[in-house]
């Protein structure tokens, strides 16, 4: 994180000095390359200097000493480079040479005074150990520093999440919450859930066809462009068929759809939709449908979100399909699924991308899954699919639970999945007295 700050300062034409107590200069350069930063080029232009300060812990001691020699080198080198920005990485390694906490605190005070005298901007990194292990007197650093940032890596239910928290920042209106962050090929990316401005996103746009004429009617015209839609139901009720109908219809209209699947491969999805007569193959070939396949367990929610947002940024789809959100909890926990979905839905709303999600229910009652229950308030349209036992066979029915900004049906609508897609048996018209509003 510090390296990224230094790098951008150096790219911006400022000279910076990196003092590493742990890693060799070569290792620092290599680490930088993996997150997309080329330090070597900056070193050649004299904007970046990496100095590996190797600490010899076997030195013989005879009386008191101080870190003044380090300060002298930094001061001399910084003057030579005309650098104002300095990073001292893993100072704890050096401070371990001092025998007691009091001495370490003295050195930190000395460092702090000196930094202020020299008017350097300094980033200091140090490891923190959970109690009872001693923290080498770094508690006092918290009081001295103008800004303290705490980074942490937690593993919950096999999923690791990095989190960042601003502990203090003098003279700034910082948010004190924890935010997840990622280390990617483009550097560090912080995804603050709390920074989403509810007032900022536009209302849903005009109607777009659902690809199912009976459903268009039941919804009073179709889905709204840019809305968040959830279709829930038991396994086999036709959720994916509904989603695929929408995808194929959008593609026919020349619009682009990103199909996110947490469960199946693109060939399997395309193949399974052939039986209800939905042609995703030609849509995929035309490039109007792209698939994004991810195994929920493979990554934490932040990585999933980041890779999906990158895909969205590159492909710029008008519509997004997620099949299914019930799989999201496998990213670690219900909280992880919620974090992922909320941020994804708000991002889609900001970009006016229709977000159609399927959700597999596990019990009799629709929307029983935690994922949907948690996000129901930010969803515009919710549709439940059910089986009905008629005695001699199983039929399917649909009910529109809510659909904001549309005159939608409130009836149980029977449908069946034919060779030509989803067909509704009873037609609802817009003039129907039973129409609901939500």
């Amino acid at each position, binding site marked *: 994180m510090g390296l990224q700050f230094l790098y951008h300062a150096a790219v911006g034409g400022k000279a910076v000095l990196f003092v590493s107590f742990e890693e060799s200069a070569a290792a620092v350069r290599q680490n930088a390359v993996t997150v997309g930063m080329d330090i070597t080029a900056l070193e050649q232009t004299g904007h970046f200097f990496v100095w590996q300060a190797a600490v010899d812990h076997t030195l013989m001691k005879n*009386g008191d*000493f101080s*870190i*003044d020699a380090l300060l002298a*080198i930094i001061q001399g080198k910084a003057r030579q480079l005309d650098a104002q920005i300095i990073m001292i990485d893993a100072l704890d390694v050096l401070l371990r040479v001092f025998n007691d906490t009091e001495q370490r605190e003295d050195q930190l005070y000395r460092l702090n005074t000196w930094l202020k005298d020299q008017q350097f901007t300094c980033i200091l990194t140090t490891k923190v150990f959970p109690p009872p292990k001693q923290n080498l007197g770094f508690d006092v650093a918290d009081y001295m520093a103008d800004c303290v940032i705490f980074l942490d890596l937690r593993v919950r239910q096999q999923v690791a999440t990095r989190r960042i928290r601003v502990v203090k920042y003098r003279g700034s209106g910082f948010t004190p919450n924890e935010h997840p962050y990622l280390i990617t090929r483009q550097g560090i990316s912080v995804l603050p859930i709390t920074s989403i401005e509810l007032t900022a996103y536009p209302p849903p746009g005009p109607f777009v066809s659902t690809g199912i004429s009976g459903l268009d009617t039941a919804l009073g015209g179709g889905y709204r462009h840019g809305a968040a839609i959830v279709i829930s139901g038991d396994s086999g009720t036709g959720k994916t068929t509904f989603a695929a109908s929408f995808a194929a219809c959008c593609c026919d209209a020349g619009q682009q759809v990103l199909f996110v699947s947490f469960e199946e491969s693109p060939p399997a999805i395309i193949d399974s939709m052939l039986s209800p007569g939905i042609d995703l193959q030609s849509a995929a070939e035309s490039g109007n449908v792209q698939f994004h396949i991810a195994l929920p367990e493979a990554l934490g929610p932040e990585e999933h979100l980041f890779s999906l947002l990158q895909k969205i940024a590159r492909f710029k789809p008008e519509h997004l399909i997620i099949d299914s959100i019930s799989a999201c909890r496998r990213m670690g926990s219900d909280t992880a699924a919620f974090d992922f979905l909320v941020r994804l839905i708000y991002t889609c709303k900001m970009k006016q991308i229709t977000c159609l999600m399927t959700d597999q229910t596990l019990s009799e009652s629709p929307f029983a899954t935690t994922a949907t229950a948690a996000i129901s308030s930010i969803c515009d349209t919710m549709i439940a699919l059910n089986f009905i036992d008629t005695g001699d066979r199983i039929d399917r029915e649909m009910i529109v639970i809510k659909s904001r900004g549309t005159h939608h049906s409130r009836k149980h609508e029977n449908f069946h999945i034919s060779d030509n897609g989803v067909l509704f048996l009873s037609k609802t018209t817009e003039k129907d007295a039973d129409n609901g509003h939500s």
Partner: protein
Amino acid sequence: MGTPDGFCEYRMRLFVAGTERNSVMAYNNITNICRTHLQDKYTLEIIDVFKNHAAAMAENILLAPTLIIDTPFRETIIGNLENEHQILTILGIKP
């Protein structure tokens, strides 16, 4: 301090941080040891890290004061050198 030419049994360098307290103490302690025990068999170079940071960097001197003994054998000692006995032991003058 020391002989300008000829045989030198003890060659040492003391890195100090300006007039910082421990640095001054170390200077006093080592010059005292040299005068008393090494007579004219030594050279002692004093390097102020604030005036010559490149020398400190070359030797990776992070802590001050630091005494580097180059001959008769290489040894590095950090601190104000208040323990005279330890220095004399290292130099092989006292057991």
